[in-house]
């Protein structure tokens, strides 16, 4: 039976259910197939911090939104076209984001009086007419799945658990997704449980057939592949791309990679990933706490490893003193901060950009640390390589400021050619670098490279270079303890000058109309929403320019010049104005700060409204 096929240019689907319903896995699989099919994709997983919050409650709802299109997209989308609600809580929690006319697929088996009462529905919204302006598809997903799996030798509970695969099968049919990859994925996941494997495949196929045969869906949709740069692609999450970036950088530096880390959401996946890759000379050490994570990394850096520590905001707070030590010792170190909502424990699984000033200033004394921030999941790879380049070239700790949105989001990623990656090889010091008046020579650990101001990286085991370093102020050059006032003033300025002098690429501006008077300036994961907003504004005839900072310390050399070109500069941030504070302080530009700290990325439409208002006021 063939149904009418409607062509769409983009679709936003949100899968929502209980934390245990497998929504993240379902979303991930749909994403992989969609990326593989050639659409551009962006995703937003949104899950609670509790592993299993009470079943059927709003706090327990786990959601996964994906946006796919036949053109280049940069966000997971503002409002879903389709909501898959596995229970009443999932429906209730997501209704306010749904535009009228959206499709809602509800699992009616879960719409029991008890479950409805749990979230405060007096009657089922599926039946009481309150969803009249939506296109509701009531489907008994659980019982259909159990029915389809009746012949399998598995428990009822196991059968019920496969309902997410039924839903995935249905959605895959509805949007013409290829099925092969999902089957391969299931085969790998359940390789050791053949019964469960067969059941999941059967549930997936039952969902697909249900779509084909039911009269509830009269049309099927197609979204054609998006034109993208030629090349080989894969789908990638931010934390994975960041892990790969670190491995690639270590390989290009020809150094072993050492990660000292303590588990923390949402950074732990980097520890998990790197621990799998020992054959790339990757050493991972799960330390006893955050301080030992960075401490062990400092020890490894001293020993000549490419050293990394990974954490989130609360962990950075604990590591601060040790990061100051790394500044003082002038050793290469990458500190990855996957930011989450704060302060304190805050919102562990939600995103925020509120650690910028902590990264910039969160240490005692004058302790400058370079900062690099990725703009998208795939960009985490390049940003990690850039952080390593700065750390090893300038012998300095470097912050890599990711966040929950880019870390857990995914997108199609053009796989880079290994030979095109930068050469990051470093030279350890091997000989004396100072000649005394009497002609004798010595090793001076704080004798700087005149160009980069970097000190030598002299690793233990190098004959003749025995030396002592520490957190006490050191005499310029020779490196002995020094309490001399002028020396401290000089060393403080030298450390600052070294960071200020880091070469970073110029800030690029996109202004396709060429006559914009308003600049949208962002950093980190807000790139997608700001980009979407600029496109929306431009489509409605409003000129706007966009620039996005990857380097937050130092800023690109042309930043001042770029800022002065525009009448107004708007800085949207998922904090209360941290970049804006830096820009205002540094450049004396009266930037307009637009802020939200809702644990979620900005919506493109909303930022487009901001653009229109500001442009109208110029």
């Amino acid at each position: 039976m063939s149904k009418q096929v409607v062509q769409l240019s983009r679709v936003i689907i949100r899968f929502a259910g209980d934390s245990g319903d497998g929504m993240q896995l379902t979303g991930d699989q749909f994403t992989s197939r969609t990326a593989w099919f050639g659409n551009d994709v962006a995703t937003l997983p949104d899950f609670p911090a509790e592993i299993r919050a009470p079943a059927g409650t709003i706090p327990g709802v786990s959601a996964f939104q994906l946006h796919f299109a036949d053109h280049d997209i940069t966000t997971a989308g503002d409002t879903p076209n389709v909501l898959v609600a596995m229970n009443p809580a999932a429906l209730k929690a997501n209704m306010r984001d749904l535009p009228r006319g959206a499709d809602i697929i509800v699992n009616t088996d879960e719409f029991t009086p008890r479950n409805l009462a749990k979230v405060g529905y007096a009657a089922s919204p599926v039946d009481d007419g309150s969803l009249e302006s939506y296109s509701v598809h009531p489907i008994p997903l659980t019982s259909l799945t159990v029915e389809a799996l009746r012949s399998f030798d598995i428990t009822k509970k196991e059968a019920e658990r496969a309902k997410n695969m039924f839903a995935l099968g249905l959605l895959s049919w509805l949007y013409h997704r290829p099925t092969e990859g999902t089957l391969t994925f299931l085969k790998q996941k359940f390789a050791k449980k053949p019964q469960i494997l067969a059941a999941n495949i059967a549930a997936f196929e039952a969902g697909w057939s249900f779509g084909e045969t039911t009269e509830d869906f009269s049309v099927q949709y197609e979204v054609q592949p998006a034109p993208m740069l030629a090349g080989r692609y894969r789908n990638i999450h931010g934390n994975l791309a960041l892990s790969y970036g670190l491995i690639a950088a270590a390989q290009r530096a020809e150094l072993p990679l050492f990660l000292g880390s303590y588990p923390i959401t949402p950074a732990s996946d980097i520890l998990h990933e790197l621990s799998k890759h020992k054959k790339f000379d990757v050493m991972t050490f799960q330390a006893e706490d955050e301080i030992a994570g960075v401490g062990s990394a400092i020890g490894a850096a001293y020993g000549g490893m490419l050293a990394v520590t990974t954490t989130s905001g609360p962990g950075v707070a604990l590591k601060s003193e040790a990061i100051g030590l790394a500044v003082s010792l002038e050793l290469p170190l990458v500190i990855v901060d996957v930011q989450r909502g704060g302060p304190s424990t805050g919102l562990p699984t939600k995103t925020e950009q509120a650690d910028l000033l902590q990264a910039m200033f969160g240490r005692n004394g004058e302790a400058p640390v370079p900062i690099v921030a990725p703009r998208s999941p795939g960009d985490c790879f390049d940003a990690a390589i850039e952080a390593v380049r700065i750390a090893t070239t300038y012998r300095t700790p470097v912050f890599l400021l990711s966040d929950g949105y880019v870390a857990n989001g995914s997108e199609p990623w053009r796989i880079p050619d290994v030979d095109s990656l930068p050469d990051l090889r470093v030279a350890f010091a091997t000989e004396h670098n100072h000649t005394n008046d009497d002609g004798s020579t010595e090793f001076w650990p704080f004798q700087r490279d005149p160009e980069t101001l970097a000190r030598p990286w002299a690793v233990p085991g190098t004959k003749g270079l025995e030396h002592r370093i520490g957190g006490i102020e050191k005499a310029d050059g020779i490196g002995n303890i020094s309490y001399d006032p002028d020396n401290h003033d000089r060393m403080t300025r030298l450390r600052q000058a070294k960071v200020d002098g880091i070469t970073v690429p110029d800030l690029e501006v996109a202004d396709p109309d060429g006559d914009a008077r308003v600049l949208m300036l962002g950093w980190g994961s807000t790139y997608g929403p700001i980009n979407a907003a600029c496109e929306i504004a431009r489509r409605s005839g409003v000129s706007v320019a966009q620039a996005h900072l990857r380097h937050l310390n130092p800023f690109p050399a042309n930043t001042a010049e770029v800022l002065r070109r525009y009448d107004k500069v708007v800085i949207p941030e998922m904090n209360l104005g941290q970049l804006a504070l830096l820009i205002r302080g540094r450049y004396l530009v009266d930037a307009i700060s637009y802020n939200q700290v809702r644990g979620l990325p900005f919506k493109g439409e909303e930022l487009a409204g901001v653009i229109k208002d500001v442009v109208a006021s110029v």
Partner: protein
Amino acid sequence: MKQSAKDFKTDQEVRWCPGCGDYAILAGVQSFMPELGLAKENIVWISGIGCSSRFPYYMNTFGMHSIHGRAPAIASGLAITRPDLSVWVVTGDGDALSIGGNHLIHALRRNVNLKILLFNNRIYGLTKGQYSPTSEVGKVTKSTPMGSLDHPFNPVSLAIGAEASFVARTIDSDRKHLTETLRRAALHEGTALVEIYQNCNIFNDGAWDPLKDSEHRDSLMFRLEDGQPITLVDGSRGVVRAANGSLEIADVAEVGIESVLVHDSRNPDPAVAFALSHLSDSVTLADTPIGVFRDVPRASYDSAFHAQIESAKAGGRGDLGSLLAGNDTWEIA
């Protein structure tokens, strides 16, 4: 070229207070270092913060004076990644047991190849005289004018409780015993904790005097020697099994030397070593054992760590191109 203590001295002026016990330990360590038979560049001293932590500046090897309490963590990162080095940690009772307690116990349980020298003077010296985690209850200091309330740690008991595979105690002024203890520690695979009773002559002078005074020390101190009955140096009293299973001290003349426990630092069961560490009176120092309490074989963390890496590499080294590509790709022309 044959090394001597002189080879391990630096040109830096030693800045401990005149009369500080640290001088004796430094001299003892410097004269012991040639015994390691290692080139100077393969030895690293790492310290935290405190008077003792200035130690690396005076050792002509590689060294790092780090931050308060963190030396075991930093040294672990170095020792794990550079098994070719001999890594030594210098710390004090405040640095190791107060601010850095967590790192110390975890280093000990992991058994990373580190030799940790804990200078115990029962006082905070660098901050000018507050009580420390090893100070006796009732200690009157600047921060405890009516006497301290905290029950002290016994570093040896703590280390044994933390699964340490090597734990010893020695005294700053006893060069011979100090050297013997360092020798045993250096030979041990894994973490070795050596507590060194050290005198702070400015803020806690004489803290260990009963054990140094030649008139009384032999009746106060046990010297633990493998294969020898555990008796006070003067032989008058010895350690025996009590009826309740714990240890007690009895007159040797009364119970007979054959009833006295024979020391065995290699005993896999830590119970006896722990009980020995608890014999002494923390105020009078009566019945204080010195020597190696525990020295048992256990694979070091770093050797197991590198064995895993080697086993992962045995299947061939990683190929970056195939890693980045993964196994689910598509081509766009």
